[in-house]
């Protein structure tokens, strides 16, 4: 998954990104308690590290995004978690930009919140293996939505980006599939090994 770097977007777009992120951060941080912080941080770090694994696809490679998984694990706190992960990626690896931290957090964090909703809805149903199924769906949907939001951010900047957006979107199709399989598999594993982490009763 690519994050938008500095210097590409129109100022209106990244300023709007900072505004949305500011509001969502203020809301979620107020709900966060002091003893949540270490747990949230270690999961943030785990998502950060896991997303550095690369799977080769032809000449290029794909890596896990795991924003949907963060949503499933952390609920609304996935938003600050993704904000921190993206800030660190921009500072430590120059992946993404400084001015675009706000909009990149919207692109990844809002789908995480949606994934949280999907998984929560799914766990009220009575389908067999619902955690794996809805986990995979939430994981894939979160990446798909992230690509949609990324495309919107680029297209509102200018019509000139149309072809670039098409290229970026096409490149993400395999990533969505890989992500769905991986998130389904992580959740199936956690359900067997340590169900309380994902809020499932043993």
């Amino acid at each position: 998954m690519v994050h938008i770097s500095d210097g590409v977007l129109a100022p209106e777009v990244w300023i709007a990104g900072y505004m949305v992120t500011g509001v969502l951060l203020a809301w979620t941080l107020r709900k966060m308690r002091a003893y949540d912080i270490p747990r949230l941080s270690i999961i943030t770090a785990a998502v950060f590290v896991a997303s550095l694994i690369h799977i080769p696809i032809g000449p290029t490679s794909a890596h896990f995004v795991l924003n949907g998984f963060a949503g499933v694990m952390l609920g609304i706190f996935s938003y600050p978690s993704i904000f921190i992960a993206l800030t660190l990626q921009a500072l430590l690896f120059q992946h993404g930009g400084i001015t675009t931290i706000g909009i990149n957090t919207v692109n990844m964090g809002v789908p995480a919140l949606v994934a949280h909703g999907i998984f929560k809805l799914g766990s009220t149903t009575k389908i067999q293996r619902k955690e794996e199924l809805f986990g995979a769906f939430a994981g894939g949907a979160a990446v798909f939505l992230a690509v949609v939001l990324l495309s919107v951010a680029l297209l509102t900047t200018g019509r000139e980006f149309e072809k670039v957006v098409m290229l970026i979107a096409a490149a993400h199709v395999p990533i969505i599939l890989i992500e769905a399989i991986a998130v389904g598999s992580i959740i199936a594993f956690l359900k067997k090994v340590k169900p309380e982490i994902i809020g499932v009763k043993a």
Partner: protein
Amino acid sequence: MIQYPEIDRYSALSSPIHDWDPRVKLVSILILIFSIVLLYDLKLAFIGLIVAVIMLFISKIPLRFVGVYLKWVSFFILPFFLIMPFTVQGTELYRFHVLSVTYEGVTYALLICVRAFSAALLIFPMIGTMKFGTTIKALESLKVPNKLVQMVMFTYRYIFVLTSELQSMLRSMNSRGFAMRLSMQTPRTLGKAIGMLFVRSYERSERVYNAMVSRGYVGNIRTSHPFKLRDKDWLKAFPVIGIAIGLHCFAGIV
């Protein structure tokens, strides 16, 4: 293999930027980054790039080290550079059969490229000239919300712990015959490994936190070297912020 973050590898060098007060350094260079990203004139953006390169040279951070880190920016910028010269409407520069390169397309792509690289280069003098712990302490004294500062601090520390954990897990998977390839099985197996990573880290986080609280941790960061502002810290801020504002005063004239 997974890479450790080592942006502060050259924080022990000595240069005027290294001994600049961390808070003033962060704020000044951030203002410069925002200023350059907001430029619309290609010539002014080039001046911004030159300023970024000069600051990188002053900081003495080796170019070879910086080059490796520019991979992601280049990766993101490349499609713009390959496509936009052909798709943006405007005055034609060259023509190959059906494709035509336009002046507007080339300048737009160059502008994006120059702004992106200037911002990425400036991160090195800003962050790479001090220990990351110092950066976190500076964020705290700049009144960034305490919960965010704590999350940055914990997450940063855990990245190293979990990277080495995941590296050893991948190594043992490889020795048992696992190979990274594009198949249904690869993401499934990796998913299980990542699940294990979460299980292992989950309980550790609570043990560490309890240990910290019992030793008197209340959420603020203590260091043995409190920051002290000197006149020369302000003196260094003056040209940097001056350039940031100056670029936009010129933008009005050009």
